[in-house]
């Protein structure tokens, strides 16, 4: 199983407290190819594509409009 995380050092939370999941581009439990853009987060006027690290079945952990921080686990890629 592979993790989909917000990069740990993506932004300084002292400057900008949080981001938000703006969109998931695949459905929960859907098949995702490696390298596909699976989600978009928005942080302080930045739209940031999140890319799948592996191929497999997507499990969404943080849904659309959910709040995220650097390092947050937002999804997982399961085998199958």
């Amino acid at each position, binding site marked *: 199983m592979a993790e989909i995380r917000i990069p740990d050092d993506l932004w300084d939370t002292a400057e900008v407290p949080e981001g938000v999941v703006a969109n998931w581009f695949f459905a929960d439990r859907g098949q995702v190819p490696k390298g596909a853009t699976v989600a978009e987060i*928005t942080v302080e006027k930045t739209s940031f594509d999140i890319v799948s690290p592996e191929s497999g079945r997507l499990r969404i952990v943080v849904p659309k409009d959910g709040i995220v921080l650097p390092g947050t686990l937002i999804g997982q890629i399961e085998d199958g």
Partner: protein
Amino acid sequence: MADPLPRANHGGAGTAGVAGGYVTVPDTDQALDGLDRTARAVGNGEHQPGIFVWRMRRALVFTRREARLPGFARAASPMASSGWPVSVRGSGGGACAVGPGTVQIALVFPRPRDGVSLDSVYHALATPILITISEFGVKAEIARVPRSFCSGRYDIAVEGRKIAGLAQQWHGPAGRGGYVIAAASVIIDEDPAELAAAINSFADICDGVQRCSAGAITALAREAREMGNGTDLPSQFSVRLRNTAAATSFSFAAGLGRQSQIDPDQHRRAHPVSGLRTLRNIRSGRQVASIVRGEPA
């Protein structure tokens, strides 16, 4: 590869003497499409990272999130009829009003794998804007302006009024075509009341678009005490901004592993490093100054 971003010379005297520079006033959709094509080429290694400075015709530019609002199409048609066509961009934030009196700048580079923060990119983009504004005798700072349009932590303000807004788009996978566009719109010679009125007119029709206050917005033409050499102010600003951006932001883009198309020595001769004094007065100036020296961000 020729620049996908159109470089039709607007004919203004402000473009004279800038080798390779361009100031354009294309259709907004054309400009945004050209920027996206350029960015894809940068991400694919077909085009060098670089800094692009241009001007656009009058338009309202929205985010993709706003374009999905239920009332968006209903509001777009009457706004276009009243001289404010609508375009959609890929970066975050909110509605922004642009015109020939605003100057656009974009820093475009391949998406890095890790170790580069959004904050460092914002500072790399803000630095040349702050320096160029100071050359007109105006002191600006990075500060959120709450009642302005497209308000954000990295607004650039003059005495509490917004003069520039910054936004970013990190697209695709690093190392496989991904790219970053860090872009700003600087208000040089537009009427803040007209800009605010256009956005508020759209917001009156389309719920979910943030209203703004004209009193929270300013323009360089209103603030500048040193008006330059008599040519039109947006052209003057465009030329100076491009030169300054090449000297400051070049090192940032180059430090990400690719070589810029811009010759750093040419532009460092044109812009003495005295600009570093300004950098040290900026919050996180140590970080930004190290970027200028070419050290890793």
